[in-house]
């Protein structure tokens, strides 16, 4: 049978993929995609834990994460488009104004 550990491992692997993407990609859009992967990986974990402990909170949490993701897209995409209009590039390296 498929137990909680299976889902958690899956969630962990997906999360790692997301982290990998976050580190590797320099394209802002890709970065956003990787973030979505991270969020979804976590969602799976939440729902799985909730399911196997008979607790609904996991799902509720996933709902709010989805809401956050939706807001993130609305704002983030607006910013990317704006940035592209300004600089003609959505490369992360073009976004380097806050040099320490």
């Amino acid at each position, binding site marked *: 049978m498929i137990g909680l550990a299976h889902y958690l*491992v899956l969630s962990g*692997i997906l999360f*790692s993929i997301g982290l990998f993407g976050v580190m*590797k990609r320099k394209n802002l859009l*890709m970065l956003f995609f990787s973030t979505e992967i991270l969020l979804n990986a976590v969602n799976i974990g939440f729902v799985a834990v909730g399911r196997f402990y008979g607790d609904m909170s996991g*799902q509720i949490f996933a709902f709010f994460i989805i*809401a956050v993701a939706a*807001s993130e897209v609305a704002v983030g995409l607006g910013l990317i488009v704006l940035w592209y209009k300004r600089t003609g590039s959505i490369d992360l390296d073009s976004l380097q104004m806050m040099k320490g």
Partner: protein
Amino acid sequence: MYEVIAFYTFSLLTIALFGVVVISKNALYSMSALAGGMIFIAGFFFMLEAEFLGVVQIIVYTGAVMALYAFGMMFFDTTKEVRERVHAQKVIYTLAILVAVCVVFIVSGPIVGQKMQALYPSIEGVGNIQMVGLLLFTKYLVVFELAAIMLLVAMISGILLVSDRMNLDLTLKDEDDKEREMI
């Protein structure tokens, strides 16, 4: 039996698709793969008896979020290969694999909190949607309303950000902008 088949099929597909997302050089591939992956994640939710969440995942993520990404991508040239200067590849791989191994090791081990108590146990005979609704409108009402406000704010800011007025530069004013304004 079927659950096992479904789980492994879905898992492999999801991992493969998400892998494509992070590796592919073409933004369109990534987007399509991500959208597909989202649907499989909805499949997991169905398997976990969270039907409502699954449907929401499809509608919100696949239907709205990814479509918005696609719409945003139309502003950029999608056919061009994404060129990225990536340095120290080995570091990335090492880190990612390390994290993956650690996570797998941690979660595949015996779960510590076996005695964990369900705070909001599902009630027998009440459907998933009713349960979700019950929780959302009682315990999590404030959070729910806050999420609604957050979405509204996000919507407005999204509209504002891509509106024409934002082309008037307020902070990054440089010579070109001045010329543009003069014209």
